[in-house]
């Protein structure tokens, strides 16, 4: 006698598989293009300088954190809210560092918004 948890998992798997089988041609085509792009990566020679990109990103984030902790009055930089900094320095921060420019813009916008409110 199977327990209810196992039955639920089986029923969920069945529904899920049907939804996978029902994917349309356009979606499958995009998946195929993505796969080909991935396979093309295996033929690319490794660029050594790219290996340093994550370390450089982390160093930039640490530097940013130190600058922000100094406070806006000391060095005249924009103070990022603590929550945003936490997001930037989360455990998967390497991915986020690709968008530093976006967060810089975001901070500018938030400060402008605060000004409007005040």
């Amino acid at each position, binding site marked *: 006698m199977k327990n*209810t*948890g196992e*039955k*639920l*998992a089986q*029923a*969920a*798997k069945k*529904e*899920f598989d*049907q*939804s*996978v*089988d*029902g*994917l*349309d*041609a*356009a*979606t*499958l085509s*995009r*998946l195929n*293009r*993505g*796969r080909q*792009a*991935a*396979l093309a*990566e*295996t*033929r*690319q020679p490794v660029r050594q300088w790219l290996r340093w990109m994550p370390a450089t990103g982390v160093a930039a984030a640490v530097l940013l954190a130190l600058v922000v902790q100094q406070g806006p009055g000391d060095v005249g930089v924009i103070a990022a809210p603590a929550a*945003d900094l936490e*997001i930037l320095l*989360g455990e*998967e921060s390497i*991915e*986020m560092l690709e*968008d530093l420019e976006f*967060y810089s813009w*975001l901070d500018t*916008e*938030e400060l402008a*918004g605060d000004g409007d409110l005040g």
Partner: protein
Amino acid sequence: MATDSLNFAVSCTAKPTGARTLQKERQLGEFLAEVERRALRIAEIAVRDRDEALDLVQDAMIKLARNYSGRGIEEWPPLFYRILQNGVRDWHRRQAVRNRVMVWFQKSKSADDDLDVIAAAPDPIGRSPDEELQNSEAMRDLELAVHDLPTRQREAFMLRTFECLDVAGTAVAMGCSQGSVKTHYSRAVHTLREKLGEHWQ
């Protein structure tokens, strides 16, 4: 003469680097082709957007190929899903930040944005409209319930149930202990049983 024969035998059995690379690329292609559709649906349930899910799956495929194609084939499934789950978590973080920005730039949604072209397309596997409706309703309920689970429970449930990863593989994919996987999975099933009701039991 004997030495020449030996050299010939060695040169025939030892694969050149180029051939090994091609073999690895073929194996990787087969792995990705086998996993990509399920990965898409798993990502789609997590982010509730097919285009975003397609981008996340493509990113995961590229990162796996770029960084881990040299690893053993048996390591690919948990590594691939670890990359994908990290991508999904990052996506949610970015969304949280962007949503705060959108408070300042709220736009009214046009009616065209609500039209789901994919949902409106005919069923590609030939189910009757009634069957399609019944299945799509059941799947929609399931998707919503799974989506609403706490992140770690959702990850554990989808990797164990939909992708059929074992506990050890799921632990690698989630970056946690096997005990945590069991706990998250058990809680997810308990919550889903309560939400989905008798139809699913």
